[in-house]
């Protein structure tokens, strides 16, 4: 049971380039989330998904797009990267709608935009 995995672990982009971050979970969780973590700050929610084929905006969605074509995968896309998107990105999942469920986090992707 791998839990939540993220690829890649590190990436360096130039301004204007695009990339996709992949999150995969093998726990059959319905809900998945993408967060970003900036130095000295907590995590901020970018986008989330409550099931296959659904996505919704979080607190800081601008500049990002997401897709959930398969239940186990949640993709985060940057169409035109900006230096302000330099951050560590975390994916998380949880089993369902109950508010008493913990979220399980991946190890993170460290992205630098030059």
């Amino acid at each position, binding site marked *: 049971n791998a839990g939540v995995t993220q690829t890649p672990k590190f990436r360096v982009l130039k301004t204007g380039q695009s990339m996709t971050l992949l999150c995969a979970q093998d726990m059959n969780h319905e809900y998945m989330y993408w967060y970003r973590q900036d130095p000295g700050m*907590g995590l901020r929610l970018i986008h989330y998904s409550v099931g296959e084929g659904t996505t919704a905006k979080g607190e800081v969605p601008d500049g990002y797009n997401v897709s959930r074509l398969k239940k186990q995968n949640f993709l985060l896309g940057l169409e035109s990267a900006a230096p302000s998107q330099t951050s560590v990105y975390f994916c998380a999942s949880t089993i369902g709608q109950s508010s*008493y469920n913990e979220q399980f986090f991946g190890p*993170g992707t460290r992205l630098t935009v030059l």
Partner: protein
Amino acid sequence: SQQGEEDPQALSIQEGENATMNCSYKTSINNLQWYRQNSGRGLVHLILIRSNEREKHSGRLRVTLDTSKKSSSLLITASRAADTASYFCATATINNNAGNMLTFGGGTRLMVKP
């Protein structure tokens, strides 16, 4: 916006001492969760306390919740060098679409010296 704010931002103690971290929040919550993050890693869930609970224990962890003051504390007793990490509180509010919506504070960086 950050719902939870941790205090202190950084804490340095000797092994064997107790560590206390505090979290304050602004709006009504369904539950409050504490997570731990080792350097360069994802977050790991430690403990969840519901809004109708006042205290909860898990091993060397003790969490209290005072909803009238909108505050929580995490106590780690008999600390070990391996407890060195950042600790985040996350408040959970009900969202009909997203289930367990977590809002994270900025974290407390704990260093336990051997």
